[in-house]
């Protein structure tokens, strides 16, 4: 390795160490990094060193949200995406009042007509987060239902009805909307069923993170309101034209090389989605899991084709 590369390696390790101590909950220590780097096993020393340096660079750019941070984002989701729009409406309806008592009464009424749900199967992250969402925002458990509890079967009339007819706001919660595809598909059945039974019902889809790419797909979904705590614009696609990761990268780091390397190993690990699900190209992970929209070289574990040691392991949906 050249002197510059040696220095850069030391600098990257130093940055990763700091991230590990401050943001990554001490999950990524040197022995794990070394094992992960050993995945990059080109034959010549020069190429291997170059790959490992680029891998280390990508790792140093990884964005991770630990348990405390995810809980904080869940607070933000409730406070900023759910509560604030209601407060704003109440104030506007009441001559811009700042009377906290009046506002609180009205808000509680609206909240009692709301139900929060996770997106997808109860074992998936959307539902998993719901527990923390309730804890962090100190919400009563009766505001939470499973998807299958939206409806009930009216034996007398022999038809499906809403289990809570007084509810007029259904809020679906998820951690990440990567492609938007899953949310769209999920929404289509459930939203039309709700609306057919209550035309006034409002259906929101609130997520912690959403990519720019998902916005288009979500427009096709049947939600009344969609919003994200954190929006990931196209600059968060690692190898995209507008990538923010290589704008101030050291000279030794070559975006094209990093892309080819990630794609080459990615293909061995995850043939259909070498740079993350539907080419999302994210470098994002959470305390509870790493989304498949992130580069597979970061999270892939137990692949059928190639043994791989992940640095931020992903626990797959279906084992």
């Amino acid at each position, binding site marked *: 390795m050249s002197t510059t590369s040696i220095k850069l390696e030391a600098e990257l390790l130093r940055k990763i160490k700091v991230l590990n101590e401050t943001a990554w909950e001490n999950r990524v220590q040197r022995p794990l990094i070394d094992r992960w780097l050993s995945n990059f096993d080109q034959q010549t020393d020069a190429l291997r060193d170059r790959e490992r340096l680029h891998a280390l660079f990508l790792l140093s750019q990884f964005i991770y949200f630990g348990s405390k941070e995810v809980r904080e984002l869940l607070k*933000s989701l409730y406070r900023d995406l759910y509560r604030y729009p209601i*407060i704003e409406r109440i104030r506007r309806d009441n001559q811009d009042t*700042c009377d906290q008592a009046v506002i609180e009464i009205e808000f509680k009424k609206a909240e009692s007509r709301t139900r929060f749900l996770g997106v997808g199967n109860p074992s998936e992250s959307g539902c998993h987060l719901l527990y923390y969402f309730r804890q962090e925002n100190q919400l009563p458990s009766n505001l939470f239902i499973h998807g299958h509890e939206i409806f009930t079967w009216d034996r007398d009339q022999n038809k499906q009805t809403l289990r809570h007819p007084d509810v007029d706001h259904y809020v679906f919660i998820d951690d990440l909307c990567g492609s938007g595809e899953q949310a769209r598909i999920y929404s289509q059945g459930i939203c039309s069923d709700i609306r057919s039974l209550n035309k006034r019902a409002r259906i929101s889809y609130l997520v912690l*993170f959403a990519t720019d790419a998902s916005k288009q797909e979500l427009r096709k979904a049947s939600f009344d309101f969609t919003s994200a705590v954190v929006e990931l614009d196209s600059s968060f696609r690692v190898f995209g034209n507008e990538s923010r990761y290589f704008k*101030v990268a050291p000279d030794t780091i070559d975006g094209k090389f990093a892309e080819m390397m990630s794609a080459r190993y990615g293909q061995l690990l995850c043939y259909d989605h070498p740079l993350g699900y539907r080419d999302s190209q994210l470098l994002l992970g959470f305390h509870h899991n790493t989304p498949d929209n992130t580069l597979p070289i970061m999270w892939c574990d137990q692949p059928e084709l190639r043994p791989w040691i992940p640095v931020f392991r992903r626990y797959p949906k279906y084992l």
Partner: protein
Amino acid sequence: MAGSSNFDFTLFYKVPIGPDLTWFSSRSWDVFLSAYNASERVLKIFDAATAARKCWLICPEYGFEANELPEGERFIGESAEESELISTFYSQLNVDLSRCSLCIDLTGFIRPHLLFLLRWLYASGVKRFEALYTEPGHYKAKEKTQFSKGGIREVRQVSGFEGSHKQDTSNDLLVVGAGYDSMLIKAVAESKNHARKVQLFGLPSLRADMYQENLIRAQQAEDALGETERYFAPAHDPFVTANVIQTIVKDFQRTTNLTNLYLSPLATKAQVLGFALYYFGADQTREQSIVYPITSRYERETSRGVSRIWSYTVDFEAIRTFAGNAPVAPLRPGL
């Protein structure tokens, strides 16, 4: 008096606008104030705003030469001391801001100047005004971006936010709005080295990666900070920031008898507004002050691009009503 209950600042209106600037075409104010620097996110907004009087405040810390200054109405500050600068500016502006519609772009201000301006407006009876804050696309050199320049002259209380303090400092608390500028964090933490410290981080950050960048920078001050607890408020939201400071104080008082409270807003200007609002709405008998590490120079351009623009409606009247129209310490009744 506010007593033991807290004012809920998150009731105030806020709206994200842009990055396209069409929102401005439907707005106009009597007076629009902004602090000049070379960032795209400051210049663009000034151009887009419509007002009967649009005025640049030129802060000496940016070190602009006469030939670099913008056209139009401008006030060139000579003294960097905030009470001096703002009171002179206000007298030259020669308009009763409590009687006109006012919009202030917070983005380019030097923090102590912004704080004293807010203090002045609050004391002058301004009922409400609109504040703007523009998020950057990214900071110039990510986590290595430099903001303040030169050494730190002193760490001192900001004029108008000095308060009166107890001599007993056994349970003092310092709340640092931790931004990227680790040198400032270091300096303020050292100046209050006996106090327990809480870092208030911007989360959600302005952009997804900025929270981690922020942690990396703040970590450079870890030796000065010692053991700290982390709290969070959105980097773009002054109102949640003010509420979170209330929570911090409450949490601290739950276990300890708080002696003195020091606040140091070193992060986004939106959060600086939040710190000031907290101060105005807080129990004025509490021993508290805003402290700031003073540097002689600031970088003129620290960011690239324009992301979201926020408009906040700051309702001083509501805070005053809540506080029973009590004057903000250090002002005694009758002053």
